[in-house]
């Protein structure tokens, strides 16, 4: 069991995994591992209609064993569910300047040599690609919107062959503008979804809460299921540096001089307040919200994304 977990790409350290290949390849590995584990929690899948039986394999959840067949045929079979094909999903990816950052850029404080760390954007791209691949393998239509201070890329949702290639290509396009303009991107996503669908916003949410909530409320009003994956570098939560530093926001050029040791506790408290505020505000409009740390294996945000959808009303 441990060996199986160790070889699943969705459970590996994301920085080490990302070093092995391009987004396309990494996403395939992640999704392969992810899909292997999905049979243990089929309720977290997108489909709910029964499709067929298959033989029981070790590790399958006993809740999904068809006990009638087991009683008649004296063998264990698992009920599988037919995939939906009418789901239309759009992944909205923040590619602003603030996403092109990792805690490795901070002066190390008692960490020895800095551990390899993906930028939030690199991490989010793998997550987005993996998410798209999972959906496509379930024959859902998947689109992509990339934005910074404006919409950089808009790939309409499609389920046909070749959509995966288009999405991966789009992920490699330019971005990293100086600001994040989520409302415009979300509006673009809404236009791409011509009927009820799913929107997944992957962003560090370094933007005005009211603007984002207002845009998401519009999506919810249109009947879309919305999930927000809040990408955070661990060092954005802990502020592990030391000394006297001048902290500069790469997007707004805001400069904050601070003695790290003096403000660390207050900063941590503030980050917790901010996350709670996001959770509360988004929850109030029916938006799923999950915080994703860039040092977590890629399987974590995938599960969180699907879990958030399961919990939607």
């Amino acid at each position, binding site marked *: 069991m441990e060996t199986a977990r160790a070889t699943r790409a969705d459970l590996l350290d994301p920085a080490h995994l990302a070093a092995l290949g391009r987004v396309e390849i990494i996403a395939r590995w992640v999704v392969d591992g992810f899909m292997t584990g999905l049979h243990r929690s089929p309720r977290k899948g997108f489909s709910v209609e029964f499709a067929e039986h298959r033989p029981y394999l070790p590790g399958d959840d006993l809740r999904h064993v068809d006990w009638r067949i087991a009683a008649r045929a004296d063998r264990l079979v698992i009920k599988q569910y037919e995939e939906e094909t009418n789901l239309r999903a759009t992944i909205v990816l923040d590619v602003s300047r*603030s996403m092109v950052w990792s805690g490795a850029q901070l002066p190390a404080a008692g960490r020895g040599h800095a551990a390899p760390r993906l930028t939030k954007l690199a991490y989010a791209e793998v997550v987005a690609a993996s998410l798209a691949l999972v959906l496509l393998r379930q024959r859902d239509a998947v689109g992509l919107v990339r934005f910074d201070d404006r919409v950089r890329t808009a790939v309409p949702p499609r389920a046909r062959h070749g959509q995966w290639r288009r999405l991966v290509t789009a992920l490699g396009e330019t971005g990293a503008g100086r600001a994040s303009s989520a409302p415009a991107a979300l509006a673009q996503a809404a236009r791409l979804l011509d009927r009820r669908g799913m929107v997944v916003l992957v962003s560090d949410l370094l933007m005005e809460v009211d603007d984002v909530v207002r845009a998401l409320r519009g999506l919810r009003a249109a009947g879309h299921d919305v999930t927000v994956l809040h990408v955070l570098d661990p060092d954005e939560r802990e502020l592990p540096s030391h000394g*006297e530093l001048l*902290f*500069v926001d790469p997007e707004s050029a805001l400069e904050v001089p601070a003695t790290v040791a003096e403000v*660390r*506790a*207050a*900063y941590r408290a503030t980050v917790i307040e901010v996350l709670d505020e996001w959770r509360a505000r988004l929850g109030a409009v029916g938006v799923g919200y999950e915080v994703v740390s860039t040092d977590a294996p890629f399987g974590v945000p995938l599960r969180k994304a699907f879990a958030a959808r399961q919990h939607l009303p």
Partner: protein
Amino acid sequence: MSFLSPWFLALGVAAAVPLLLHLLRRRIGARVEFPAARYLARAEREHSRTLRLRNLLLMVARVAAVLLIALAAARPAARLFGGGHGPTAMAVVLDNSLSTAAVQDGRPLFAHLDSLAERALSGATTADRVWLVTADGQARAGTAAELRDAVRRISPLGGAGDPALALARAASAVRNAGLAGQQVALITDAQRTTWTAPAQLGAVPVVAWVPAGAPPANRAVVSADAQPQRWTPRGAVSARLMAQDSTTYRIALAGSTLARGTAAPGEEILVRATPAARGWLAGTVELDADELPGDNVRYFAAWVGAAPRVRVAPDAGPFVASAVDVLRGDGRVAAGGDVTVAPADEVTALPALITAPTDPVRLGAANRALARAGVPWQFGPVRRGAVLVAGDGAGATQATLRYSLLATGAARTDTLARAGAEPWIVAGPGYVLVASPLTPDATTLPVSAGFVPWLAGVFANRLSGDPGRVVSAAPIQHLIWPSWAGALDGAPGAAGTEFTAPDRAGTYFFTRDGRRVGALVVNPEPRESELARWAPADFARLLGGHARAFTAADRFAAAVFDVTARRPVVVPLLAALLAVLVLEGAIAARGAGGEG
């Protein structure tokens, strides 16, 4: 607070470092990109009061730490609240001289002094070594309780004593005690005539209490003498008073009043009397009592006896015979053969007033007669020519005919007058020898106005036997025992080679073989009657650099033992430093992660 290494206080300037860092910290530091800077700004904005307070506390703690290090390095010593005092060698000098008996504000000053002494001693602990030293120089060692009992038994002396010596002894005692803490507590009236020179205290610190305000006005008898000491039987008493105004006095001898009167300030009193009593008599000159009764009575002594019987040889000359007749008529001498007045060649026995022979051819017979009589002098060559005579009772006497006087033995003699450089009148036991005939062609002495009194004095004081002597002394004065005395009435055990005068004023008689042979007259020093005092600051300066003087009893009591109340405070400072560092660490740790 004092410092053993005060130069280390300069380290205190390092306290400016955390202060400057605190003020300049926002201008220091590298520029780093941080997307969540808005969260940081919000954290500082929302927690600004907490952060400012914390930063202030950190700055204060760091400045305090630096200051505490500098203070500890300077090795401070300070008086700690409730800390008592360390082992101390403490000598309490209680000035019990006569002047401290003066009544001030309705109460003897000494009553206040001894209560201060008790209070000073009550602060002693068993770890201290304590002494009590009084103006008579006596140093008492013991426990604080024993010395407090001793204080209650002490009363003012009859004289000045020597408080300065007592202070020096006290300082010596504490210096040699072997304790690091040393102090002398001096309780005195700061009388100017007593404290006249800086004390020899070394490095011993002195804390003194002196009375505030002016001393009371004082009247005193500052001198009283019998003139002459030997009354035959007529004599006189001279006295001098110290007073602001005219003062009534009484002179008494052997309990009988000789005279009463009023004397002006500075006036010398002279009272002649012929008392009926005989022998050694004690007398007093008295004033009405004032604020210092101890100096209102002054004592004297006189020997009163019958007039000497004098025989004048025919060759002594008409002037001598006439003068003796005058004295006999006045009752100062009587007719008889106790004392002879004669030229040397006619002297057969002593006592005698011996004159030089009128004719030089009788010089040999004269010298032989002197030798037979036991007079250790011989007449030498004749001297002619007028020579001025200088000496006791000589006045403006000239000698025109005289002989050189040559001593023949080592016997002790008195030279009463000299003619030029040579002895002219010499005296010894039972004789007075004049180097000239007492005739006008040899000397002007017999025709001078002072001849009769001089002659009376010779008979009364030189040739009428030896009744003894009067020794004048101050209370507790150290004296050589007179060889002619066997004992001292009123002071048993005083006999010896040396003795100390009684501490009470009065007349004490020397005796030998059961009869009085002299007197010891003990009177306070006249300067003790001058009650002027030093001001506290001047008194402290007089005592020396380590002396402090107070007039308030509480401040004095607080200063006693304060030399060892200052203890090294390095350990408390280091403890405080440790506490500050712990506090600083706690504040820093709380800021770094305690709230997260």
